[in-house]
């Protein structure tokens, strides 16, 4: 137990160190911006004295290390700066849009896990059979398809040709007049459920299917491949052969004994793909005009809204580091051999 605790503490410390470094890189990134940040704030028609005043206000006339300390100080107080585009605090902009993005991210990842793991298990169970070949085809297509292209193909198919699902958006335009959603968690699916607003629930679910599936395609491919590889390795082990020799039913051997031991490598991939999917959501949101962080990020990138870019980058990296930490700790908990390394 103490060894496990020591491992977790060590991982926590490394993560803190990495986050510190991440803040330096993010800070330097913004200082590479070729245009004068002060000019970006005021606009192209700024007078010289105005520029000097804003430069002083933003601390741009101070030495770099001082600027970094100022940046860190603000950061510690939850101040990510003010967006040049919207003139509102970046943190506020992010918080306002985060629920929509997170709802999409969670739904997509849930889909990926619920589809990817069973596909991988079945594929390993029927190795070399048509089912296996089918699953491998689906997974390699999933990891080769650009999300922004897959999104459009699905729109053409399910909206234009079949007419089964809506084209874009998070809810129908007239929903707020007919069956408005009371916001409690800001996750529309949950809110509709909690308030028993069945009409809205149906609308919200119909809208989230295509974006979530688009987002899930790449993770489904990765998770299915990794689960399959891990299962094949486990199925070869002596204890599985022993279990079979004892006459334990195939279903129990495969889905209980083997799957339990194949779950650890699968977990790593799930963690990795969540982090990957965070960037992926931005593209999916642009395609489906989903009102999340994506559109804000793209606008910030194109307009060199550097406080917003810094905020989003820092957020993405922090989430990535955090997810990796959680995966490592979970694995140490599942598999005691890891903390012994």
């Amino acid at each position, binding site marked *: 137990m103490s060894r496990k605790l020591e491992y977790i503490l060590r991982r926590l410390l490394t993560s803190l*160190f*990495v*986050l510190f*470094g*991440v803040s*330096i*890189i*993010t800070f330097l*990134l*913004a200082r*590479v*911006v*070729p245009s004068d940040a002060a000019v970006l704030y005021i606009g192209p028609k700024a007078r010289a004295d105005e520029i000097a005043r804003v430069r002083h206000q933003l601390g741009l006339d101070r030495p770099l290390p001082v600027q970094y300390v100022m940046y860190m100080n603000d950061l510690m107080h939850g101040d990510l700066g003010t967006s040049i585009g919207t003139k509102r605090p970046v943190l506020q902009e992010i918080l306002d849009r985060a629920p929509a993005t997170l709802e999409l991210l969670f739904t997509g990842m849930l889909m990926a896990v619920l589809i990817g793991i069973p596909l991988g298990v079945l594929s390993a169970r029927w190795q070399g059979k048509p089912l296996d070949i089918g699953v491998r085809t689906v997974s*390699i*297509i999933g*990891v*080769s*398809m*650009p999300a*922004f*292209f897959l999104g*459009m*193909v699905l*729109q*053409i198919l399910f*909206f*234009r040709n079949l007419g089964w699902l809506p*084209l874009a958006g998070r809810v129908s335009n007239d929903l707020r007049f007919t069956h408005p959603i009371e916001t409690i968690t800001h996750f529309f699916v949950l809110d509709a459920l909690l308030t028993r607003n069945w009409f809205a629930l149906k609308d919200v679910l119909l809208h989230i299917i295509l974006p979530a599936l688009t987002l899930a395609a790449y993770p489904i491919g990765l998770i299915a*491949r990794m689960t399959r*590889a891990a299962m*094949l*390795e486990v199925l070869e082990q002596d204890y599985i052969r022993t279990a079979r020799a004892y006459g334990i039913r195939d279903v129990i051997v495969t889905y209980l004994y083997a799957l339990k031991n194949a779950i650890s490598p699968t977990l790593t991939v799930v963690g990795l793909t969540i*982090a*990957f999917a*965070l*960037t992926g959501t931005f*593209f999916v949101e*642009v*395609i489906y005009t989903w009102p999340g962080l994506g559109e804000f*990020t*793209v606008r*910030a*990138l*194109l307009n*060199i809204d*550097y406080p917003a*870019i*810094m905020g*989003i*980058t820092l957020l*993405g*990296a922090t989430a*990535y*580091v955090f997810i990796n930490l959680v995966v490592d700790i979970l694995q140490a908990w599942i598999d005691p051999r890891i903390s012994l390394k």
Partner: protein
Amino acid sequence: MATIPVLIVEPEVQSTRTFRHVLNVIVRDPLSLVSTIVIVLFILIAVFAPLVAPSPAEGAGKTNVSHRMLAPSLEHPFGADRLGRDILSRVIVGARSALIVPIGVVLFAILIGTPLGAIAGFKGGWVDEVIMRVTDLFLAFPSLLLAMAITAALGRGLQNAAIALVISWWPWYTRLVRGVTIGLRERYFVEAAQATGVRDSVIILRHILPNTISPVMVQATVDLGTVILAMGSLGFLGLGTQPPSPDWGLMVAEGRDFILNQWWISVFPGLAIFVVVLAFNLLGDTLRDIFDPRQYR
């Protein structure tokens, strides 16, 4: 802990044998063979784009308003876009920024990452510590997000997008090569060279680096698919190639408003990305099977 080396093979002998072995496997496996042919074909098309494209001028951006939004036909197999430009020509000319530039990106990432990894793995100690901690920092960002932020900071455009992708991708090679090098350091041919007083730089150049080529090649093949996707994504956002120059990702974005009726504007460049990435992934799987049979079967 000392490991007992089982095989002592001269590096050169080993690498030629592996190369022939790889060729054999690729030729015998229909999927890998088709993937290789597709990749070579696309590279050739990209290199000779001005000769292959039906209308090189339209491919490069010249508009032809009378052909506006033409549907695919014999004359325009992929149709024409919003400004009447032949989409087949634009896909062909666009292969340069969408395919050749990513190949260059991966090469540069290897050129930076590999020596750093070899030095870190061979020297160990504080050199290793410094190189790997810096590597860790870059790996702490989701690669595509970092590339997006760097491109925005440097200014939009193909060249800056390529630089951003190199900055985001080199650490993967440093980490990989360091691992391989640590394994090699304990092999007899390296110990023998050290015992006879060969300089460290010579050992790294002559004995370590040649032996990292196979794993780096496998990684590069798989990475190429990912970098092409990333370049397509940057182009799609408008951070990469700037109009009127063609680029697959950018073309998909240009057709976005028309997908319900003039679907061909987006679909053909999107398909081009998909086919090339699929080919690299299939080939990468085969190579990985050869060099690391335990990971994927």
